């Protein structure tokens, strides 16, 4: 496909220290303007937090960005975790299970493949690489429908495998790891290991992997997000509510709440459930900031 994606960049000569800050008049204007824009990104989340502290009447009768009468967060949480026999906690467990298994598996596969593509010249390597790049463009429905039919003939639908197996393939992860390995693993290091009599695979496992860790964390995080947020695949593959990830479960509750007919008492439950479902990923991103930012900067998108 693309030269843009394929061509690895030059090495950065010198990086400016982060956060060099020279206050000027233009700078003040810029700061004010950008912070006003930030409101747009934050307001929906603030609204969600506030909405989670209200009961249903409060949602309808009080202003969205301020607290209503009474603090109902804990009642709402109790509702979320007790509704439908406490299935919500099962959804959270499922989501973590699917996301972590897929992300770890995909990272291992992508790292090994990306390293080999970057560091070895072998017949077929360019075929593998172009297949990987081309596959980034295939729409998910083109795959999801036949995958569903194939899985159903193997009795794999409505099992965790139906979510995990397709999520093990991360073409973009392979691409990232190839670029990252090309840049951060020096050929002379591999040569030195060879002269010392280290086998190729041992060299990869000891020297290669250690140098690739920041890139691996990036791939891991992005695949984690992709699987955590996945909706389409579990929607078609799963029928049993106790196997749902939280996205499919919440969408079901939302549909029930919106259909009316007395189900409107669900609104506060749906909103509080949404809040609970996004907390883990946000916390993960806050704590792993250094990794996803440096990982992207160092390897993935050098022009």
């Amino acid at each position, binding site marked *: *496909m693309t030269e843009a994606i394929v061509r690895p960049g030059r090495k*950065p000569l010198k990086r400016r220290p982060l956060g060099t800050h020279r206050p000027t008049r233009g*700078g003040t204007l810029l700061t004010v303007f950008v912070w006003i824009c930030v409101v747009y990104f934050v307001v929906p989340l603030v*609204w969600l937090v506030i909405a989670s502290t209200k009961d249903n009447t409060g949602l309808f009768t009080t202003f969205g960005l301020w607290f209503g009468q009474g603090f109902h967060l804990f009642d709402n949480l109790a509702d979320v975790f007790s509704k439908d026999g406490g299935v919500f906690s099962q959804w959270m467990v499922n989501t973590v299970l699917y996301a972590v298994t897929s992300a770890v598996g995909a990272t291992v596969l992508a790292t090994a493949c990306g390293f080999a593509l970057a560091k070895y010249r072998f017949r077929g390597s360019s075929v*593998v690489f172009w297949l990987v790049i081309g596959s980034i463009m*295939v729409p998910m429905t083109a795959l999801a429908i036949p995958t569903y039919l194939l899985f159903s003939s193997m009795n794999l639908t409505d099992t965790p495998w139906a979510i995990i197996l397709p999520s093990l393939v991360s073409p973009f992860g392979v691409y990232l790891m190839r670029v990252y390995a090309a840049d951060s693993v020096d050929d002379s290091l591999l040569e030195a290991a060879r002269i010392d009599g280290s086998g190729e*695979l041992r060299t990869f496992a000891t020297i290669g992997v250690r140098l690739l860790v920041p890139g691996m964390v990036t791939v891991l995080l992005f695949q984690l997000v992709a699987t955590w947020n996945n909706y389409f695949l579990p929607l078609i593959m799963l029928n049993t509510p106790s196997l749902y990830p939280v996205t499919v479960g919440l969408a079901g509750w939302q549909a029930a709440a*919106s259909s009316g007919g007395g189900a409107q008492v669900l609104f506060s439950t749906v909103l509080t459930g949404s809040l609970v479902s996004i907390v883990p990923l946000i916390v993960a991103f806050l704590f792993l900031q250094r990794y996803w930012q440096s990982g992207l900067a160092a390897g993935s*998108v050098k022009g």
Partner: protein
Amino acid sequence: MTSASPARRARLGSAQTRAAWILVIPFVAVFAAMFLVPLGYSAYLSTFTSQLVGGQVFSGLANYQRALGDPSFWAGLSRVAIFLVVQVPIMLVASLFFALALDSGRMCGGKVVRLLIFLPYAVPSVVATLMWGYLYGENFGLITQIFTGLGLPAPELLAPGAILGSTMNIVCWEFIGYNMIIMYAALRTIPTELYEAAAIDGAGEFRVAWSIKIPAIRQAIILTVIFSIIGSFQLFNEPNLLFNIAPNAIGSDFTPNLYAYNLAFKNQDVNYAAAIAFLLGMVIVVLSVIVQGIVNRKEKTS
């Protein structure tokens, strides 16, 4: 390794090839099973038609012919095309602006800004759509509350005429930060020598951004453009969830992907759905190649 004998080098070469394949095979095996096989199966399915009597019948390209004359397919495709020419530029210009603002180092609290703008990326599209759906809605929607509070008529953001714009807003909210991070990461790799030279020449911040920074991160920008094209054409989650709260504004054919899903899982017309999905894939590939072609030609002429 210049001193190595030819025999030793050959042995090493084969050892390396073997190692390479051992490392590549696991991915390739899963890739083949989860990607190539379903894709091939999909192509195969698309050449059949299911009939009430006689089951599946080979019909060649009939499904593709049907798709090309199907107003639902074209309606979805044109909606996505509007999305592509309106939402993608707005999103990417905003991302680029924030990336440049952060990179200029002239802002207070840049680190916090970067994090807050990126945060929506960690929110699943299901939750994002659900949240925005409530914000848009008239039940207890924040936007309606603000407008009525100001004594103004509230905009009907879930009406048929507005729903495409409302969807664009959700996608912008989700992905501006993600694209910003990609561009910002690329900006940080530009060597400072370039700026120093420009500063000596007396170039201002805007001039530096336009003449040095943006050309220097061209590849990262192209990457975000291509990913956005792919993303737009695959639009599914947002319209599928908005359907729950605005069934009159979003039909089953709102986007080609939604159409293919509804064909396959609601109408049980798997064969036709496979053909639609395949056509969609081809459109994406062709567009990505065109974008590449334009960029490469510009590169040659400049």
